[in-house]
């Protein structure tokens, strides 16, 4: 009986259409996992741990495999492993209030779980930045010390509200100088040398990958929306670890073609005439509960834009010299939308709300990411005041399922939907 009811309920459910080539994400993932195994197995190949906002391209330029603890932490969450790993890390002494990616990763290494469940191997070097948060360097340094692996940290100056151009140029100078320190570090600890030809080849491919993602986002402005945040949250994977590599480009080209095909027919990811609310999602998704984004469809809501995945595809300049290239990359590291200061965040959010015809904004106040969560109250107030649309602040966590309260979140989302509905009637 229950089964029959569930089946009937499922028939009534509004399902997001996935793009025909969405399943092809498996190829870049498979390529990356295979390369990881090869680079770890062959003694003359080198591997590194890297983090978000680190110029991954440099690793590919040096033919170093970029392993990515954050990425593996999301894999652990998606495979329902993160809670037990987080609890294991807390058993090692790490506070409940610390980043759930970090704790997932520390425990994944400590328990030596399989790669397919989010495991990660010891690298040859550990490199990171503090562009997004200090957690990155604290976590990476703790692990580098534990693994007895050389550690390099990029110190990225903060682009606070009101920073003037002269200060910004001084900040760029500092980052550029550190590039030269990083090059010395890499060459010393891996024995590899910079190949300038390879550098420009990798950078060209990285630019192409970014440009494709940005073009995909241009098409997301269409009504109805052809591609939801539920899908982009998975498919942006090549931008995390494969900028500079062809396999990601091939995948994005297919996705773009699918999207163009849909928009040409006036179709969207929602069934015909079901798209009622276009929502902007700010913050990292709930990796252990990706269904949340699909479930919004039941209310006629689709995530049309999210700064998080957009952050990984900055507009890259074509540069002619090494110095020019490094200055551009330095600025891009500081200029990631995920880490915008409050003034720039408000300015850009309001622009995106217009461009993507947004009806409401969900801000994930992520207990594991204080830098992203700080200022959200002001951001919400500014959007409601200037744009007259509702904003929902959801306090939760990206990787720790213990923070997710099904009933509470459902109630709050339903209230938010009602506000968007009421707002449309105005």
């Amino acid at each position, binding site marked *: 009986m229950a089964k029959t009811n569930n089946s009937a309920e499922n028939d009534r459910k509004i399902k997001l259409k996935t793009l025909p080539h969405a399943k092809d994400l498996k190829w870049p993932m498979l390529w990356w996992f295979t390369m990881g195994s090869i680079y770890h197995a062959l003694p003359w190949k080198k591997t590194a741990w890297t983090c978000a906002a680190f110029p991954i391209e440099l690793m590919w330029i040096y033919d170093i495999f970029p392993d990515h603890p954050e990425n593996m932490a999301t894999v652990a969450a998606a495979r329902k492993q993160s809670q037990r790993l987080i609890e294991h890390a807390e058993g*090692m*002494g*790490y*506070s409940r*209030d*610390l*980043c759930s990616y*970090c704790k997932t990763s520390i425990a994944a290494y400590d328990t030596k779980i399989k790669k397919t469940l989010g495991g990660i191997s010891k690298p040859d070097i550990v490199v990171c930045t*503090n562009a997004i*948060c*200090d*957690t990155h*360097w*604290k*976590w990476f*340094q*703790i692990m580098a*010390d*534990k693994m007895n692996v050389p550690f390099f*940290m990029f*110190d990225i*100056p*903060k682009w*606070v*509200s*009101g*920073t003037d151009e002269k*200060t910004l140029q*001084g*900040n760029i*100078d*500092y980052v550029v*100088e*550190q590039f030269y*320190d990083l090059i010395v570090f890499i060459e010393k600890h891996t024995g590899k040398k910079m190949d300038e030809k390879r550098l420009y080849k990798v950078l060209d491919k990285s630019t192409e990958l970014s440009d494709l993602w940005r073009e995909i986002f241009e098409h997301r402005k269409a009504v109805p929306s052809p591609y939801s945040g539920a899908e982009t949250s998975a498919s942006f994977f090549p931008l995390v670890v494969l900028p500079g590599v062809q396999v990601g480009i091939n995948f994005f080209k297919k996705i773009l073609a699918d999207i163009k095909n849909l928009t040409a027919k006036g179709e969207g990811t929602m069934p015909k005439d079901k798209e009622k609310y276009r929502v902007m999602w700010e913050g990292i998704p709930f990796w252990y509960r990706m269904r949340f984004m699909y479930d919004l469809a039941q209310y006629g809501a689709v995530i049309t834009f999210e700064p998080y995945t957009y952050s990984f595809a900055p507009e890259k300049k074509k540069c002619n010299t090494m110095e020019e290239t490094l200055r551009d990359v330095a600025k891009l590291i500081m200029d990631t939308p995920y880490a915008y*200061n*409050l*003034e720039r965040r408000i300015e850009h959010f309001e622009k995106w709300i217009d461009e993507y015809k947004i009806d409401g904004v969900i801000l994930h*106040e992520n*207990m594991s990411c*204080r*830098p992203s*969560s*700080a*200022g*959200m*109250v*002001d951001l919400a107030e500014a959007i409601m005041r200037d744009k007259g649309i509702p904003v929902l602040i959801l*306090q939760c966590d990206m990787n720790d399922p213990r923070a997710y309260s099904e009933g509470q979140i459902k109630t709050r989302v339903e209230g938010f939907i009602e506000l968007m509905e009421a707002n449309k009637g105005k």
Partner: protein
Amino acid sequence: MKIIKAQKLAYFDTSHEMPLEIIMAAGFTPYKILGDVHQSNDPADKHLSNFFCGAAKSWLTEALARSKEWAGIIFAQGCNNTNRHYDIWKVHVQTPFLHWFGAPLLDSDAAKKYYRVELQRLISHLENQFNIKITPEKIREAIIKSNEIKKKLQRLSALRAQKDIPNRDYLAAMIKCLTNPVDEVSAWLDSEIAAWNSKPSFPSGKKQFLLTGSDITYVEWMDTLEDCGIRIVRDDLSVGERFFATLIPDKSDPLDALIEYYMNIPKPATRPTIQKRLDYLYKALGETKVDGVLSQNVKFCEPFAYDSVPVNNALKDKGYKVIHLERDFSPAADQQLANRLMAFVEMMEVGNNG
């Protein structure tokens, strides 16, 4: 804008990154914002969520109430969220002068160069705002005064292990030095050193501890430790030894002196590396024989929470008796924490602390 004599110029500093000597050379009294644990954080709660550090909220509450008394506010890059707090303060705190000082996290040659750029930017901003000239001579004078305070604090601090000095007296002295005019503080320290010297010897019933972790900014927590039979005789806090552990070197260019000093003071958890932080702890523990180490963390203070695991493990591996605990930013006595501390001290007495 005209400077009112001895007017306070406040600074937001999660550790000891703010080059106070520039503020002094500009003719102001450096005032470290420490908040008031006795005031409700309701004003700050409007802008910061419940999982942000209580100390930072208290600082915002203080600034919202008192910023008009200050000539301005300078933020020194410190922990994970300092820049985010700056953005929020820029919107909500009324002040004629708000400056971001990008103290680098590293101490490489590139970082030293950047530190100089940031020092010059701060000087230039102060000069333009207040129509003053911050000359090398004025900075040199400020360095001399700063070093005088540091030397006196070194003498005062050393008495903790020898005399009967309640925990709260040391913290109160530190807070006074960080919030009042230097000349006033210097004279007061002379009398305090004399007073502490005349106190009885270290009481036999108390255990000597080194205190490490998040900063302590209110005396009630020191009283709790006192009540548990713990005397803090060494520490590596910024409202503590990090402030006076080393002196500003004598160099022909005073900016060079500041760069060398601020990049070489014992590291807090907000600066790499953990080993450099441990080096100071080992040095302090080598100089002063203690009964135990207390590692404490203010709730939601991330840098020290990260460090606490490797740092405490390293200290335990060296044979030190270490207890770690997390406390709320609150003056209310937490009996559970007190019970744990008392149990730890009792186990020490019977020689069974694991």
